[in-house]
């Protein structure tokens, strides 16, 4: 018997740190078009290979290839590109507003726009997303998007639909299929499963779509959500956005090393796909597949979206302290806007001139919305909320003790 070495605790480390480049070979990739597209009624166990592969449609030349290439008309393609550009422009402007102290805090989704924007175009009216703080694209893609309300929420101003109670970006919009963001991680996954169970109990046709990051999959609620989704065959999609980083924590610390996050679903008997999250067409196709599967009573799907958090975690974070500065540029799946733009140009339905024109349009739209929102104040100029509202909505009807406390405050 060979002599054993003393035990040594394995603490995963990223391959790159400030000063030396990341070796992205840790990410298993597949060629565009290489992976099969099973029918939506496939038994979950027969998707296990797709949990370890990478579903991709757009190749390096901007061509849509393989069985996952969606049937999508040029109008919808342009709408998707515009939605991603709007989302990026919105983030850029709000970052500046945060630096101007018009809000306390902001979180951008730079580099991840394709996932939420494509999903928003795939999802149906009445479906409900249970998002994290990096899916603003779900709201901004909608035809009924309301940037003024969103900015009022960010500013906690007099028109803030959340009445100043929530941190910036913790939106809620029931009528837009966007569940109230908690701020506690992973709690929304099991809630989405419950919402989907309710849809099934009522004989409805609505689907829930849960969102979570790679880091938060370590929480019990994620695993509990998978169990309940499988047990009750709930009409739910569990989206794991693997952007490689949870603040400064590399995804291997959440359990991504030597396996995939999609594999979690396979282990629970849930159909599981691992998808190029920077490929708008793959994101749209996989979302459509999972929605159709759920709506047809074939049960839940877990989708791992492989992407890269190109910006800081939040305005309170400095990623130059823990990862190489050139990481986003070297990420092997590229930039989602550039890739879809290349595809549209290759199709002959887009041009550099049109792109610049739309870029100016979306920037102007954001600026106009911001101007309108600032009529109701910002956090900086003390357009204070009605302080008495602090006591409302704790209960449906205000109990006596809160009435007494409100009087004590003189509000």
């Amino acid at each position, binding site marked *: 018997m060979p002599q054993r070495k003393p035990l040594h605790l394995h603490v995963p480390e990223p391959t790159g740190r400030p000063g030396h480049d990341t070796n992205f070979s840790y990410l298993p990739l597949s060629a565009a078009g290489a992976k099969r597209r099973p029918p939506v009624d496939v038994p979950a166990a027969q998707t296990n290979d797709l949990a370890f592969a990478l579903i991709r449609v757009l190749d390096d030349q901007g061509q849509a290839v393989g069985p996952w290439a969606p049937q999508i008309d040029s109008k919808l393609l342009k709408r998707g590109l515009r939605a991603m550009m709007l989302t990026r422009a919105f983030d850029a402007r709000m970052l500046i507003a945060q630096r101007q102290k018009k809000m306390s805090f902001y979180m951008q989704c730079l580099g991840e726009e394709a996932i939420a924007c494509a999903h928003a175009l795939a999802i149906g009216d009445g479906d*409900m997303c*249970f998002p994290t703080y990096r899916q603003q694209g779900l709201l901004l893609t909608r035809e009924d998007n309301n940037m003024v309300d969103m900015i009022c929420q960010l500013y906690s101003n007099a028109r803030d*639909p*959340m*009445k100043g*109670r*929530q941190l910036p970006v*913790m939106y*809620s*919009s*029931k009528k837009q299929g966007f*569940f*109230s963001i*908690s701020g*506690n991680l992973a*709690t929304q996954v*099991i*809630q*989405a*499963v*419950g*919402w*989907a*169970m*309710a*849809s099934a*109990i*009522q004989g409805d046709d609505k689907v*829930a779509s849960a969102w979570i990051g790679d880091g938060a999959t370590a929480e*019990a*609620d994620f695993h*509990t*959500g998978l*169990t*309940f989704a499988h*047990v009750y065959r709930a009409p739910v999609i569990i989206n794991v956005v693997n952007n490689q980083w949870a603040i400064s924590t590399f995804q291997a610390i959440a359990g991504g090393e030597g396996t995939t996050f999609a594999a979690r679903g396979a282990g629970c008997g849930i159909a599981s796909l691992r998808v190029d999250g920077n490929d708008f067409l793959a994101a749209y196709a996989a979302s459509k597949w999972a929605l159709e599967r759920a709506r047809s009573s074939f049960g839940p799907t877990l989708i791992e979206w492989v992407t890269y958090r190109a910006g800081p975690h939040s305005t309170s974070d400095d990623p130059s302290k823990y990862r190489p500065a050139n990481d986003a540029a070297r990420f092997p799946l590229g930039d989602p806007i550039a890739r879809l733009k290349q595809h549209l140009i290759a199709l002959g339905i887009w041009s550099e001139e049109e792109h610049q024109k739309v870029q100016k349009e979306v920037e102007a739209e954001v600026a106009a919305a911001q101007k309108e929102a600032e009529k109701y104040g910002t956090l900086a100029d003390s357009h204070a909320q009605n302080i008495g509202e602090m006591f409302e*909505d*704790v*209960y*449906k009807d205000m*109990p*006596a*003790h809160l009435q007494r406390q409100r009087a004590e405050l003189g509000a």
Partner: protein
Amino acid sequence: MTTNTLKTSPMTMIQALRSAMDVMLARDPNVVVYGQDVGYFGGVFRCTEGLQAKYGNQRVFDAPISEGGIVGTAVGMGAYGLRPVVEIQFADYVYPATDQIVSEAARLRYRSAGDFTCPMTIRMPCGGGIYGGQTHSQSPEAIFTQVCGLRTVLPSNPYDAKGLLIAAIENDDPVIFLEPKRLYNGPFDGHHDQPVVPWSKHPQGEVPEGYYTVPLERARITRPGAAVTVIAYGTMVHVAEAAARESGVDAEIIDLRSLWPLDLDTLVTSVKKTGRCVIVHEATRTNGLGAELLSLMQEHCFYHLEAPIERVTGWDTPYPHAQEWAYFPGPARVAAALKRVTEA
């Protein structure tokens, strides 16, 4: 509470709770009942027995052993528009669900400014007296009464159990519904060495068969008296009644019923009248609900008080197994407190 016209029958607390769920499953298609073992089997205490057979497995079903999952799915169902009634098998097992209760259910209305709400009732048996040891005897009510946005309810008899459970299910706020398991089958007064009295021999064991409610935020005076006010709830109401009977102290006993938000007016009126107060609960003393009740009485009744307020509670230890009756705040301890406070 128009009960005079309703047909009544004797019920145990288990039967009364089952009847409440039966009534609400029949009245409201949005009511669903689930939890560990509650479906086909009908629950380890049999509170949901027969409900799956009657309403089908889309309305009444078994859940995985995951308290966080049970409450978390209830948040989603409530947000969809259902009124889930979930069972946590023992209150001692609720802790994995506390994040979903405290951070999610209790604050969803507030954080979304009313955009989303999640009405739900979370039932759980609590309290000792059944040789359950430290994992089947706890009284964790103070964990919930401290949380803004929750309602916490704890009945002491079958009539109130049914009326309060229906009120809880109909309420639009999340409700923690604690069931003192030692009272499931009779009005236990702490005399563990005496034969069990069945609910059929107690006036509050006569329960209307149909729909009625007992309003939340309303206490009930179970024994009028002049010498001292006893604030109690659950099993301790019956212990306090025994203590008053056996000590001869003319105590006014108030059954709190809704622990938070509570019926402050009834408490203040009584304590101002008697000038003395004893607070009794089975839960541990330090930072227990008694501490808040005592503060409220001090704030609202100080100039009417003739003696220091006393608390009679479980000791600040885990709930022991073999030493259960030394831990349990029985009638002798309550009677001694009544004597001290009235003679002070």
